[in-house]
C-alpha cells in the first residue's frame, strides 16, 4: 500500500514534468530552439490563475481561459523579443541566454508586481484527498487525477493534430527541413511563432494545474523548468510521446529513491540516468537519430 502511494505520487509529479517537457519539445521540433523561460511561463500561468480564481473570484473556466491567453501571448512575445533578435545577431547560442533572461525577468516581475510569498490555491475539485482502499489506503488528490488526464489529453491531441491537419503537417514539414518547407509555400516564420505560442500556452496551463498541489509563488517554476528539461532530454527532444516517458522516469525515480534510499539523494538517479543516456544514446530514448550535413 505504501509503495502504491509512492508510485501514485511519482506518476502525478512525472506528468507535470512531462507537460512542460512537451512544451520544450514543440519549439525544438520546429525551430531547434528551446525556450528556457518555460519554467517561469508555467509560474506566470500559476500566478495568473491564482489571481483570477482566488483573488478576483473568476469562475475556474474563466481563469483557465485567462491563463491560456496569457501563455499564448507570452510565447509570441518571447519569440519576437528574445529569440528572433538573438538569431539575427548570428551568434550561435545567444537564444539560450535570451530565453533564460526572459525567465528571470518574469520571475522578478512577479516578485515586484505581485508577491514574494507562497499561496495556497484551492483545487476546483476539492482539496481533501480521496482515500482509496479503506482507512489505511492511499490518499489521492482529485487534482492529481486532473493533472494526469489533462496532460495526457494535451499531448495526444497535439500529436494527433500534427499528423492529421494541414497546420500540423506544416509544423512537421518545418521541423523536417525549413528551406524545403519554405519552397513548398509554408510560411515557416509563422509556424515557428505558432509553436512558441502553443508551447507557452501549454506550460501556462501546466502552472494552473500544479498550483493546487505545489503552492503558488514567483519561484514555483524554477526547479520544475530544470527537471522538465531533463525529462525532455531523456525522452528525446524530437519525440512528443517520449516526453511522457521522460517525465515519468524522473518523477518515479524521485519518489522511490526518497523512500527506499534516502531523501537526500532523491534527485540523483534521474540525473545519473540522464548522463548515462547522453553517453549511450544522445538523442534520447525515443529520439530519432539524425544525420547532420555539414
Amino acid at each position, binding site marked *: 500500500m505504501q509503495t502504491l*502511494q509512492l508510485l501514485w505520487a511519482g506518476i502525478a509529479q512525472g506528468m507535470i514534468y512531462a507537460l512542460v517537457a512537451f512544451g520544450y519539445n514543440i519549439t525544438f521540433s520546429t525551430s531547434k530552439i528551446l525556450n528556457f523561460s518555460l519554467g517561469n511561463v508555467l509560474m506566470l500561468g500559476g500566478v495568473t490563475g491564482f489571481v483570477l480564481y482566488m483573488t478576483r473570484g473568476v469562475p475556474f473556466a474563466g481563469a483557465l481561459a485567462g491563463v491560456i491567453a496569457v501563455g499564448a501571448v507570452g510565447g509570441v512575445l518571447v519569440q519576437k523579443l528574445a529569440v528572433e533578435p538573438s538569431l539575427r545577431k548570428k551568434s550561435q547560442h545567444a537564444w539560450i541566454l535570451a530565453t533564460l533572461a526572459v525567465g528571470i525577468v518574469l520571475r522578478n516581475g512577479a*516578485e515586484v508586481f505581485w508577491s514574494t*510569498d*507562497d*499561496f495556497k490555491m484551492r483545487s476546483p475539485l476539492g482539496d481533501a484527498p480521496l482515500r482509496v482502499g479503506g482507512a489505511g489506503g492511499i490518499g489521492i488528490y482529485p487534482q492529481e487525477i486532473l493533472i494526469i488526464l489533462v496532460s495526457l489529453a494535451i499531448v495526444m491531441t497535439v500529436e494527433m493534430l500534427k499528423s492529421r491537419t494541414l497546420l500540423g503537417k506544416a509544423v512537421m514539414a518545418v521541423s523536417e527541413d525549413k528551406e524545403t518547407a519554405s519552397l513548398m509555400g509554408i510560411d515557416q516564420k509563422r509556424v515557428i511563432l505558432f509553436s512558441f505560442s502553443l508551447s507557452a500556452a501549454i506550460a501556462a496551463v501546466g502552472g494552473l494545474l500544479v498550483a493546487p498541489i*505545489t*503552492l503558488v509563488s514567483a519561484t514555483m517554476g524554477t526547479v520544475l523548468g530544470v527537471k522538465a528539461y531533463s525529462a525532455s532530454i531523456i525522452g528525446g527532444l524530437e519525440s512528443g510521446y517520449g516526453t511522457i516517458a521522460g517525465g515519468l522516469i524522473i518523477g518515479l525515480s524521485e519518489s522511490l529513491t526518497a523512500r527506499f534510499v534516502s531523501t537526500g539523494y532523491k534527485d540523483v538517479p534521474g540525473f545519473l540516468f540522464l548522463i548515462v543516456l547522453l553517453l549511450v544514446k544522445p538523442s534520447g530514448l525515443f529520439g530519432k537519430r539524425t544525420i547532420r550535413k555539414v
Partner: protein
Amino acid sequence: MLGCAVAVMLLTATAGGEPVKIGVYGPYTGGSAGMGVSMRNGVRLAADEINASGGVLGRKVELVERDDEAKNEKGGQIMQELLEKERVVAVLGPINTGVADAALRYPNEKKVPELINVSAGAKVNELFDVYGKDNYVFRIAAGDLIQSEMIVSEAVEKRKLKKPALLCDDTNYGQNGRAKMEKALEKHGVKPVYVGKFKIKDTDMTAQLQEARSAGADVLLVYGIGPELAAVANSMERIGWRVPMIGSWTLSMAAFINNAGANGSGAAMPQTFIESGASTPKQLAFLDAYYKKFNEKPIAVAVAAAQGYDSLYLIKMAIEQAGSTEGPKIKAALEDLAKTYEGVTGTYTKPFSPSDHEAVKAGNVMMGVVKGGVVTPPQK
C-alpha cells in the same frame, strides 16, 4: 525650563546634521521573503517613530536596506558594502542562518556592531571562542539552542511522547536545528526513531512520513520554513496519519498557517511574540501602528516584525548611552545598557553582557499553538 529650551534648540540645530546610517539586510525576495519583509517593516516603523521624536543624538536615522535573496554568498557581499561603502554605524538582520554566518567576520573585523534580529541559528555567543572579548555580534531572537530545548521538553516532558521523528530541511538552518534537537533529546535519554530531511520547494513529503510512521513515531519534531512545513502537514493528511507536530518558530509564519489550513491546526512552536495574545500597551500600540502603516493584518510574520522593531530601539538606546556612533562605544553600551527597554517582545533589563550577547532568554519565550488559523498563546 531654560535648560530644556536650550536642549531643544540644540536638537533642532543639529537635526539637519549627517544622518545616522543603519544597515538592514534580509531576504526581500524569494522563499524567505515573508520573514525578511516583515522584519524590514518592523525596523522601518521604529525608524519612523524615532525620527518623528527627534532622531538619535539629534540626528535622523537613515536605513540602508539590502536584499540578500536568502543566498549565502550575498551575505558577505552586502555586509562589505554596508561597512566599507555605506559606512553604517550598526547592522540589523538577517533572516537566514547561512547568510548570517557567511558575513559574521566583517562586523568583527570592522568593529561595527551587528544585532541579528531573526536568524535563530547564526553563531553569536560561539564567536567569543574566535574573537574573545572583541565579539561584535549580538542577537535579539530565540536562538536555536533555546528553541530546540523547548521543543524537545514540550514533547518529551510535557506530552510524554518518547518516540520522536525528526524532519528538517537541508539548509544550514534546518540541519543546525536537527543537531541541537538531537543533543537535547540525548539529555532526556531519548533517541529519535527516525531522522529525515527535505529540500526547499519540496511539496510532497510522503516518503519521509511513511518512514517515520513505519518507525513508530508518536510525535514529529520539525525544523524548516513555512511553505515546506505546510507541505509536511499536508502530506500527513494525505497518507492519513496524525501525530502532533512541534517545531521551529517558523511554524507561526503565514506561509505555514495559510498553506496548511486545517492540517496545520495544533502545531506548536516557540515564540517571542504572539500577535493574537498581545496585551501590554506597548504591544498593542505596535500592532496598531503596524496595521495602519503597512495595511496588513494579521502580520505575515509577526515575530520577525516585532524583533525587527525592538532591534532598532536597542541600537538607538546604545548609541544614546554611548553618546557616539563609534562601533566600540556602541558595543560597550549594548553590553551595559543602563536603561530598561520595554519592547514588543519583552522587557529587557541589561539584555547583554560582555560575555553573553543573547538578549532572549528561555523565560522570554512561550509555546504558541496554531488554532483556527492564528497562533494562540499557551493556555495558562
